[in-house]
């Protein structure tokens, strides 16, 4: 009896759990097949899949925003479990670090900033940031999130999604429409004609803000009035709304989050791809062409319409991912899991110079991009074991963020340091990707090379390690693993050994601080690869 019950239980478990796992596996195979097809179509050979060390480092930066610890890295490399990469991806996606990193990305996107020009003020900043952190931890449906953001009313201090409309420099219907289109549709309202734009703005014409006696608190609400609004969405859908009985925001939210909506899923998919690769399927990643329906002429004669400049590089890829996103209840974690497990995300970055542009365009090589400002700052802090102290003088008494708090977790775009600004942290004024400057500049190179404070901090590192009494090879391994998350190449070992031999006896100790400093100043340290 017991045996038969356990068999029934096992069968039921397999019937429920396995299909989900199988479905994911199937989706992954399909995604890889689409990519293969794309590469074949363009005559491209993708780079080989990276080794475990490189994968670990790439995943750690892209998903946790952290420099990998040597012990974790060694453990991963030594692990022989089949499917260990998928398991690691799942572990990282479920971690609080991922939620913090995503909250940072959402904060850029939704302009979470205390001061000018957004003027959310600190209390709203912290609750809005917390909202995005929590929704990532809970893997809340992106559709549900979008609806909340669009339709919430209440205090900007007490109802976090009410800050969606509050966090706009321009709070006229024009500004609100532009902000909404950018954030949730990756669309610029300037692409619409004047007449169409006005009708689109009508959806946001009843949003009001009222103050209270609490400092800087505002209540966001819909003012029904008694108006008949003629509204129009960018894809031409027309709505007539009687505001006395209907909140125009809800009508818009219903349209936007409908499964048939051409913008919604694609917009998020493109952002997700951008965050994981550093480039979108369509670029600019937050300014996508309006999806075009195939016209009668082209359907009859089988001709495709010419793609817009900012159309996806591969429509099938975009469509597949959007459908997957929809089919999985708009679960962002599942989407990221699919992307991270794909072949495209795990290919190497090395290729011939003349092939680079083409291969990068179709994700046959992993795009090499500079680490984000907060991630670099945290990487340096983690290496040197000395975190910056973040203070804000906007609230009073002043805000003192507790010591050893990573920069990735900073909620407020107005709270910054010289290092963060130097490395191009987003000021969060417009919510556009281009605000974050991930280009390498002379000032950044000078900072890494010449900063006395940084050199001092780096110089202290070997001291801690040397207490372990390691030999030359072990020291080199540790230096490379700590800074670059890999073992040194034979040529590198040779060069360092040769250099060490040249030094006088009194100077030999200097090799280690110099080595660490040199490794920090390599492009390999500062870049996603």
């Amino acid at each position, binding site marked *: 009896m017991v045996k038969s019950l356990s068999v029934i239980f096992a069968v039921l478990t397999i019937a429920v759990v396995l299909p989900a796992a199988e479905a994911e596996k199937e989706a992954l195979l399909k995604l890889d097949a689409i990519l293969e097809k794309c590469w074949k179509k363009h005559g491209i050979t993708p780079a080989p899949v990276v080794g475990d060390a490189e994968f670990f480092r790439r995943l750690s930066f892209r998903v946790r925003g952290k420099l990998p610890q040597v012990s974790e890295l060694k453990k991963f490399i030594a692990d022989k479990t089949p499917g260990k990469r998928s398991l690691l991806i799942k572990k990282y996606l479920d971690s*609080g670090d991922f939620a913090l990193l995503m909250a940072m990305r959402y904060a850029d996107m939704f302009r979470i900033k205390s001061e000018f020009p957004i003027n959310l003020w*600190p*209390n709203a900043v*912290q*609750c809005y940031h*917390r909202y995005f952190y*929590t929704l990532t931890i809970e893997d809340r449906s992106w559709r549900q999130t979008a609806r909340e953001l669009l339709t919430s*009313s*209440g*205090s900007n*201090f*007490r*109802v976090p999604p*009410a800050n969606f409309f509050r966090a706009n420099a321009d709070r006229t219907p024009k500004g609100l429409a532009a902000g909404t289109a950018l954030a949730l549709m990756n669309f610029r309202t300037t692409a619409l004609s004047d007449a169409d734009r006005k009708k689109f703005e009508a959806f946001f014409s009843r949003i009001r803000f*009222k103050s*209270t*006696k*609490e*400092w*800087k*608190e505002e*209540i*966001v*609400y*819909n003012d029904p009035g*008694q108006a008949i609004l003629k509204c129009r969405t960018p894809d031409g859908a027309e709505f007539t709304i009687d505001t006395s009985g209907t*909140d125009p925001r809800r009508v818009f939210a219903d349209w936007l989050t409908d499964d048939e909506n051409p913008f919604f899923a694609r917009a998020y998919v493109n952002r997700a791809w951008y965050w994981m690769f550093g480039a979108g399927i369509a670029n600019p990643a937050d300014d996508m062409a309006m999806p075009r329906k195939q016209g009668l002429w082209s359907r009859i004669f089988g001709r495709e319409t010419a793609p817009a400049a900012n159309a996806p590089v591969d429509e099938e890829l975009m469509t597949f991912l959007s459908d997957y996103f929809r089919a999985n209840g708009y679960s962002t974690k599942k989407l990221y899991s699919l992307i991270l497990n794909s072949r495209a995300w795990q290919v190497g970055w090395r290729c011939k110079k003349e092939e680079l542009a083409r291969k990068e365009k179709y994700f046959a090589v992993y795009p090499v991009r500079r680490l984000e400002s907060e991630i670099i700052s945290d990487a340096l802090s983690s290496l040197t074991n000395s975190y910056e102290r973040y203070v*804000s003088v*906007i*609230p*009073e*008494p*002043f*805000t*003192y*963020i*507790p*010591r050893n708090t990573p920069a990735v977790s900073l909620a407020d775009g107005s709270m910054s340091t010289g290092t963060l600004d130097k490395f191009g942290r987003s000021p969060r004024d417009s919510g556009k990707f281009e605000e974050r400057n991930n280009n390498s500049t002379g000032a950044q190179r000078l900072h890494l090379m010449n900063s006395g404070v940084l050199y001092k901090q780096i110089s202290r590192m070997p001291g801690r390690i040397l207490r372990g009494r390691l030999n030359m090879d072990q020291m080199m391994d540790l230096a490379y693993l700590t800074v670059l998350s890999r073992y040194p190449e034979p040529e590198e070992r040779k060069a360092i050994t040769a250099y060490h031999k040249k030094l006088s006896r009194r100077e030999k100790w200097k090799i280690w601080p110099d080595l660490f400093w040199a490794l920090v100043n390599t492009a390999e340290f500062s870049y996603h690869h």
Partner: protein
Amino acid sequence: MNNFRKKSMIFLASVSAAVLSGTTIGYIYPAGGQAGKTIQVIVGGQALWPIRDIVVSGGGVKLLKLQNAPGTFYPGCWEQNQWVREYMRQVYSGKLNQPRRINKQFGVWRYSRFHEELDHLDPLMLSLACKGIFERPNSLQASPAIGQKLVLTLQIAPDAKPGAREFRLIGSSGNLRSTNPMRFYIGKVPEFREQNYQMPPLKRLPVTFTVPSVINGQIEPGEVDHFKFKLKKGETVNFQLKGRDLNPFIGDGVPGNFQPVLEIRDEKGRSLAFADDNYFDPDPVLEFTAPADALYTLEIRDALYRGREDFVYRIDAARGKYKRSAITAPAMDIPEICEHAAAGKKLRPPVMISGTIPAPGAEKIFTFQAVKGKKIVAEIFARRLGSPLDSILKIYDPDGREIAVNDDFERPNVGYNMQHVDSFICFTPAKDGVYTVKVADTAETGGRDHQFFLRIDRPRPGFQVYLVPSAPWISLDTGTDVFKVVMEKFDGFDREISLELKKAENITISGISSIPGGASESIIGFSSYWTRKLKPVYPELWAVSGKLRIPVKGADAAMQAFAYTHYVPAERIMMFRIWIHGNGDRFKFPPKFNFRVPLKRGGSFKVNVNYAPFKSHFKPAAEFTLPEAPEGVTLKTVKKGNTYQLIFTAAKNAPAVTANKAVRVKYTFDYKHRDGSIRKSVSNFHMPVLRISVR
């Protein structure tokens, strides 16, 4: 009393009074205690030197000991700094011998009695002394409002009634004056508090508490407090934090109050529960059901990682789910009816309907009979009573046309409420018939907590007057002391209000004793003649208008975020009499003067002030000014012998106004000091309050 003793007491008193005039409490930590226990509390404030006793409403709390708390230590020299630190280490390690002093440094040795007797200090005083030695104050965070500290040992009677009390400090040494009141709680359950400051390199360890209990703490800059508690799987507890409740308005705080958050973590540091606010209330409530038998951590911090000594909190930890109290109807003589009984009926005003907006987007509709020309008031009581509802009211006539809408109704900043979102409509029906009223939530939220009372009634003009501050001090024999009165007016009330003072011993209203009709704020003057009785007086101050006779309440002005002024009602009015060096009793209006200054535009009004000089005053001179004069009204003075003629003039284009104002006098004179030199003296005081009207 002979003249010398009187003058000495006046001198001492005036020094104390000058100090006491700035005496305020910024915080009390902990802000309460368990009945039957003796506790030590730290009171932070400014100008606390003359404080000698406490006054706690409701009784049952006694002051056993009062000590000045050790402050920041500034050594005279490096050797002294090292000596004090070494001595502190010895005391903490159990050794009680003082380390050897280097005598040759004695010349620059800075005396501190705390450092002479470190081994005799109790644990709290020792920790404060330790903090003063090892921590440098953050000058950027310094606030004079909480710059001084006292340590009080309080005994709470076993039968002391639990609940919130008003806690004040009073000063003596020839004077008695009270500080502002602070909230102080008496409870029945055990209380825990965070560990005292630890000598570096030690850090504070989390305290383990049991449930039910009360946890007390303070948030310093960037600090996160941790407490531990054990729970079995499935057990539910709730935590209600009082932070803003203890100190509702912080003048130099931005935001203008403590914004606490609560978080619960498991043994691995993972977050299991989080709470920021409780609807509109910044003080959070957190419910938690344990997923497993474990030791959990409760974290408390400011939402913005601010911190200061006046960021004090109390957490009530109780078993079971949090039960939000239902709101209770305002005390009005109106029949009450619940929404279910009212549904579908043609109600006849006056009626008070209790209801709830049960779900987001819901609305409640009621109908009532109205008579043409007879005003109707529709008023919501919700947020004022603690409901999260942000009401919007709409009125429809018998034909279904919307005739009135109101979302928010501006009210004076009295009380803790910072959102005046309760709706109010007063309209005159154009015809007889059945009218409809709709109640909804502006933010389209709803739930069982979104309760309201809807009053449909004829207008009942009324008022509530507040005397600011709640514990005014009145100087003896030295003119008039002027205080503010704030009016809350209801249903369009705009008549004049007379004020009557009773049971005030020798304190009287000085000048006009009424508030002009239409005013939201005004002033009132009090004066007192010489007496040796200086204990506080608990008077009755009545506000009378027509048939309405309502007791005046006390309130204290509190600023928030450098910008907003609020009035926090107190439980009672206390008046103090104080000696102060002044000569106001020498200046008098004529006996039959009725304190009214009627002015026509372009006209003037004259009144004499008679001055009775002291023989010992030479070259006396008085300067009369009219602070905050009504627009277009000026004051000139003409001296004729010992009489000053005050001439009030209204400009031709002066707007019509009726207001209470007090003339301020700056009186200077020379006198012969006992050492033979001639010295100058200046005193400032007010004349009795006048009613100035411009027509």
